[in-house]
């Protein structure tokens, strides 16, 4: 009986450690300290993150915390991200290369933190691009989907970076510049059409006039009754967080981009 109780207590202890322990083992890549996902889903995400990390030699992490205040007194998401990264001793290699997504549940804020080679693979443009992969899903309460997209996108971007072509905006800006050409032509077309219409309209002076304002006598409309009565007010509440563009590099060489979801 005592043996059975010991086994039971060990299992409970192991589960609690897995779910809530602030100190993780090096193999923990996905930590849900706010209990947002079932344990088995965390395990799926964790193994996926581990696989990507091993492939690109750069740690890919997700940490979910209940609130910012529990980590950083000032409530600064970027400071909290740095603290979490250090507390968990994240990163691979001497320079602790890594990419971490920190999610603060009650604050509905996120931070993408990079250190070492992670910062080379993801500049601010890359982080912003990466954030687009999960913000919408998280905003809609689809936590698992959001994190799955984050892992998929970050894996793809890290592989590209390893191949020597990081998603840093240089290529895409050229592409968007080229994409801008049709816009220039469309705008030019509109300007040309309006110019032609202006000069053509000079030649048209015959129009069917329905208005009879020229024949109103006296002072115009004479109002005998006039009122504007307020009836009711409707309100619409839209989630629209003010996005913090970027956090500068901290003294450990880490950089972050944060926003809301």
């Amino acid at each position: 009986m005592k043996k059975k109780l010991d086994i039971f207590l060990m299992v409970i202890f192991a589960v609690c450690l897995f779910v809530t322990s602030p100190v993780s083992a090096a193999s923990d890549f996905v930590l849900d300290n706010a209990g947002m996902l079932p344990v088995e889903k965390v395990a799926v995400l964790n193994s996926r993150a581990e696989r990507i990390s091993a492939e690109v030699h750069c740690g890919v992490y997700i940490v979910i915390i209940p609130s910012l205040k529990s980590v950083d007194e000032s409530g600064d998401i970027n400071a909290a991200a740095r603290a979490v990264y250090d507390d968990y001793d994240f990163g691979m290699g001497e320079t602790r290369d890594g990419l971490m997504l920190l999610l603060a549940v009650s604050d509905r804020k996120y931070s993408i933190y990079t250190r070492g080679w992670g910062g080379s693979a993801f500049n601010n443009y890359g982080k912003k691009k990466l954030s687009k992969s999960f913000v919408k899903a998280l905003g809609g309460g689809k936590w698992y989907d959001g994190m799955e997209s984050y892992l998929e996108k970050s894996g793809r971007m890290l592989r590209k970076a390893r191949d020597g072509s990081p998603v840093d905006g240089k290529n895409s800006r050229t592409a968007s510049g080229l994409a801008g050409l049709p816009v220039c032509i469309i705008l030019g077309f509109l300007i040309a059409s309006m110019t032609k219409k202006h000069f053509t309209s000079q030649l048209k002076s015959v129009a069917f006039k329905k208005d009879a304002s020229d024949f109103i006598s006296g002072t115009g409309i004479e109002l005998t009754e006039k009122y504007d009565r307020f009836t009711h007010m409707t309100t619409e509440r839209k989630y629209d967080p003010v996005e913090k563009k970027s956090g500068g590099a901290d003294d450990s060489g880490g950089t972050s981009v944060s926003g809301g979801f």
Partner: protein
Amino acid sequence: MSEQIVNYKCPSCTAPLRFSEDSGKMECDFCGNLYELDEIKEMYAAKEAAASGEPSVDASVEEWGENAEKMRAYNCPSCGARLLCEETTAGGHCPYCGNTTVVPAQFSGALKPDWILPFKIGKKAAEDALKRHYGGKFLLPKVFSSENHIKEIRGVYVPFWLFSGKVNVDMSFHAIKTGSRREGDYRIEETSHYDVVRRGNIMFDKVPVDASVKMPDKLTRSIEPYNYSDLTDFSNLYLAGFMADRYDLPREEAVGKGTSRFYSTAIAKTRETVSGYKRVNVQSKNLSVSDRECHYALLPVWLLSTEWNGKNYLFAMNGQTGKMVGNLPVDEKKAEVLFWSVLISSSAVLAVLLAESIGRVILGFF
């Protein structure tokens, strides 16, 4: 049938008299004498009275078949030439002797106009106005203005129904004002709803409705407005030297057009009194006309026509104010060149601006 037409002749030289828009008198182009309207009116009172009977259908025009009813045949009292006209024609010229002809019967009894607005602008001024009308128009073919000649110019008294009345308006609107504020990460959009009511009336004075079926409404409405302070009692003498038609759109049929103009203007004016809102929608409208009056008047219009590339171009000028309208041809080749040159140059400028801004963004990014 010569008694149905009256020629006004100079008492001094018997040459044709015409109404002069400059002097407002009857003028003889041959000897230059001017006569007061009342003087000539008195001289021709008996002839006008004799010619005021119902215009008859000449038996010989019956061979025109179904068109016979719409035609009238008169004999010129000066040269005896046979003049064939439309049933509504009331004034013109004899093409053989050049005498001005007036058919008093077209404007007698119930057909007599209440008012006439005499011409203030002459033929020469109308021709000059047309040349000015060509000016400053980039896409007008050069040859149209340089080689174009006026094919025909006619001073016409166009029949109009003038509607006056009080429009009673009762309109309600649903209007909204919007505002927004922030609450943390949320934007709160507030919409205030209002019931807006406007009741009142608006007076219209002599809204013109073209009473000639063959005259395009677009043209006559485009040369509005007229200054009605110059309206005067009708007299056949004003018609001397000009074309004139009696109405062929009965008053009953014109009422709808007049009311439509009343209502559309009254609605627009009432809507203008509702301001300060982001959006206003009409909820209900109830309009009616009271104190309606209708008068029959002849208003002066110069009609000028030209031909170019086998196509006729018709221009109209307000015979009182000089306002000229008429659509002109477009130089399609020039229009294409203009389009493509603006397209290429503006696209190029935009592309350069875009390239510069991308460059700045890239530099700023690092």
